[in-house]
């Protein structure tokens, strides 16, 4: 590991560790790793302040491949480990990398609690709708009826929608992207990193070994413009190869309309990331293929004090008020008396 104490402009390479990357050839994880290395230098952070925390799973190998600080923790607990990191050291820039099993199955509770506390973490959920590392069982995001090693007759579990859950858990930043559109991926990672508070990003990630083509509809050249819709703040929801389809509100629910024939852009739903109430984001998170194009991009991005910020303030305020406690005083507090 080269020692590098002078400040210099970092590049993607500076973030590559010396470890061989051990994902299956063709795995979508590679693309995410590559984009991560690209966007990190843009954040103007000292490398030594960056920390990746992960759980267990193929995706959770991520920290080993980054030449930053990192914890490859245990299954499902990354958000809790990361909360400890941030609480103790608010100055660190902390990423959490997790999978659909790690983050939503065993780790679902830590995930929602980190989110609701608004700990300043950027949580990347690599959703491949399968357990990769344990060789192919269905996950909480696997579609019903899916045949896997542990569901030979088809899964009977109704899947969770990661974004709905995150929104249900009071998320301040929610986004979705995927491993194929690397530009979108990079810009989403960057935006998520810049958000103060918990940013939750679902990344559609192809597991070409156990669940190949799971997101073909959303990532395939031919299909993606009809099956996804790119969210842009303040812009109407337009999609389709010809850019001639849009989403309009019908009461509280979305409907697909074709532009023209009396339907104008202004009739469409305009995206607003910043609206304080999450109902719009929630509604968008309910749009699924094949009924609807699936929104990619930033669903929601609002400001709210971070957990570690408030914790730190609490400490500083009390020091200001009471003075920095001295051991002598500490011991002498409570019921004391002197024996002569």
């Amino acid at each position, binding site marked *: 590991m080269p020692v590098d104490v002078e400040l210099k402009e970092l590049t993607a390479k500076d973030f590559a560790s010396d470890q061989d990357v051990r994902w299956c050839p063709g795995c979508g994880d590679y693309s995410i790793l590559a984009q991560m290395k690209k966007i990190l230098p843009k954040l103007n952070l000292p490398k030594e302040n960056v920390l990746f925390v992960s759980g267990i799973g193929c995706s959770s190998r991520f920290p080993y491949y980054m030449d930053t600080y990192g914890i490859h923790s245990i299954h499902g607990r990354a958000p809790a480990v990361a909360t400890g990191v941030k609480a*103790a050291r608010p100055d660190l820039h902390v990423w959490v990398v997790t999978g659909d099993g790690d983050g939503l199955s065993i780790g679902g509770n830590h995930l929602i609690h980190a989110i609701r506390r608004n700990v300043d973490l950027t949580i990347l959920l690599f959703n491949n709708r399968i357990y990769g590392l344990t060789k192919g069982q269905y996950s909480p995001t696997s579609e019903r009826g899916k045949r896997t090693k542990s569901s030979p007759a088809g899964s009977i579990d109704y899947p969770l929608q990661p974004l709905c859950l995150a929104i249900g858990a009071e998320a301040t930043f929610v986004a979705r992207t995927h491993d194929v559109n690397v530009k979108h991926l990079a810009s989403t990672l960057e935006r998520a990193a810049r958000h103060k508070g918990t940013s939750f990003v679902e990344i559609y990630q192809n597991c070409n070994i156990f669940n190949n083509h799971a997101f073909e509809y959303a990532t395939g050249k031919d299909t993606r413009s009809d099956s996804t819709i790119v969210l842009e703040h303040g812009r109407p929801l337009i999609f389709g190869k010809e850019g001639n389809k849009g989403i309009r509100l019908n009461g509280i629910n979305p409907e697909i309309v074709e532009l023209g024939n009396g339907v104008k852009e202004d009739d469409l739903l305009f995206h607003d990331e910043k609206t304080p109430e999450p109902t719009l984001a929630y509604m968008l998170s309910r749009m699924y293929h094949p009924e609807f194009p699936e929104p990619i991009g930033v669903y929601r991005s609002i400001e709210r004090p971070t957990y570690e910020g408030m914790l730190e303030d609490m400490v500083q305020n009390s020091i200001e008020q009471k003075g920095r406690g001295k051991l002598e005083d500490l011991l002498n507090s*409570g019921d004391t008396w002197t024996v002569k």
Partner: protein
Amino acid sequence: MSTATASTDRNVNIERVDNITVRFAGDSGDGMQLAGTQLTNTSAIFGNDISTLPDFPAEIRAPAGSLAGVSGYQIHFSKERIHTPGDVCDALVAMNPAALKTNLADLRKDGVLLINIDAFTKGNLAKAGYETSPLEDDSLQSYRVFEVAIDKLTSEAAKDTGLANKALLRTKNFFALGLIYWLYGRPMDASLEWIDKKFGKSPDVASANSKALKAGFYYGETTEAFTVRYEVDRAAIKPGRYRKVTGNEAVALGLIAAANLADKTLFYGSYPITPASDILHDLSRYTHYNVKTFQAEDEIAAIASVVGAAYTGACAATGTSGPGLALKAEAIGLGVMTELPMVIVNVQRGGPSTGLPTKTEQADLLQALYGRNGECPLPVLAPRSPSDCFAMSIEAFRIAIKYMTPVILLTDGYLANGAEPWLLPDVASLPDLHVEHPKANGEAFLPYSHDERLSRPWAIPGTPGLEHRIGGIEKEDGTGNVCYDPDNHEHMINLRERKVQGIADDIPLQEVEGAEDADLLVVGWGSTYGAIISAVERANAKGQKVACAQIRYLSPFPRNLGDVLKKYKKVLVPEMNLGQLLMKLRSEYLVDAVGFNKVQGKPFQINELSDKIDEMVKG
């Protein structure tokens, strides 16, 4: 042990006694914990040695008057060194029938029984399961019963404060306290001061409480019923500044002290659980000592957050009780694998499963030692008294930091809630826990290089050039890279084990107390110390050749422990479990030690141990 002297006032005799045990018992709403604490403080300030034990009901607030709702507080004060709250009571205050029923068995024959007759209504008697009033049959014959209309007298005493009767009645604990003060010749000033401070903002309430206290005191003074007062002289205690601490308080103070001595943030991630919650409560009040508490969503998150905080360089600790320790097992393993310093406090309670949550037990020793997957060694320490919790908390952090390892500190419900006077240590005498975190020095950084102590460098995020990754998969010695190599695995398995064993060179040798030429050694650990040393002192006083050794370091054992054990013909191991330390001692040293086990959610009584010692000495 008592000498009667002439009374100074009225026709009251004063009896000087060596020590007194008083128990206040009443409904949860009757303020018994407060009365107990007041008597404790007053006695401590007076100069007695003290030891106390509160006894909470398991239910939050069981129906008033019910057996389940009885709350008790026992205080032992003495002119000599004492170690336990006392086996039996010299005086029992029973504020209602349920309190009488559940506590009478612990009052010695001829003991003082102070009864609030106003609460002995038909309804209350029925709730306590009395068919006839014990006041009206001869079931209380063998005690010195004082029937006092406490409710009525309290209301009377303070009615001019203008408070409603219900509010007045809330001061009846102070009436009872006053009476006890009179009976045992305790001064009222400390309590009066406390009342003023506490209720300063509501002068009428303050006044009502003061009046109740005084009324109780003067009731003793005036009433003909009381013909004897007892006095317990000041103890010959080491001079200095003392503080009353419970084990939980001492743990909190110790953790803060350790972090301060290391010049670090104390991060405490925990999930509430009886009887450990008070550590969290205490710590959350100490933010100005650079303490950050995190109430996690569960025990797993708590320990996981501690792993994260430890990696970043904080003094990180968590606290819990048995079921919580079980939940933390997997992540403690991560702590062991990542070789990070952290302290895990486990306040043992009655098990298995939810068990007896408010009761004490010592049945988590093997869980602490072995309750994780794989070979997962770590140091385990056990304080032997409430105040020892302070020293051992610092010791836990000292070892954790020096050896880069999680450390488990085992206390129990008895230590946690029991209080004793604590001679405040000189801050300068506390160890220096300052850490030099490594900095880049131009050489390749090896996060898993191990020094002569088998400890690895604690390189913390934010340090340029030392970027490295840790995790739960087996690590290559040196680089810390993921490594599946069979020989490296065996090497690391042994390294982790040797590291912990090596700490034996850095801890005090096992001490032995009691007779020099003893045949019988009583070996204990944790909170049983008070009862064991008391029983051994009694035995020695009787001329029995008995010694005792209280093990505070359970992993690793002190270097000389095997030699110590082999010196004695017989080894007795009293534990509040089915023989967990016993198993370790037998397997490690092949000594035919025998167990003496009590698993009732209650500490040993000195008597029980004395009987067992008699049996062993004879047999």
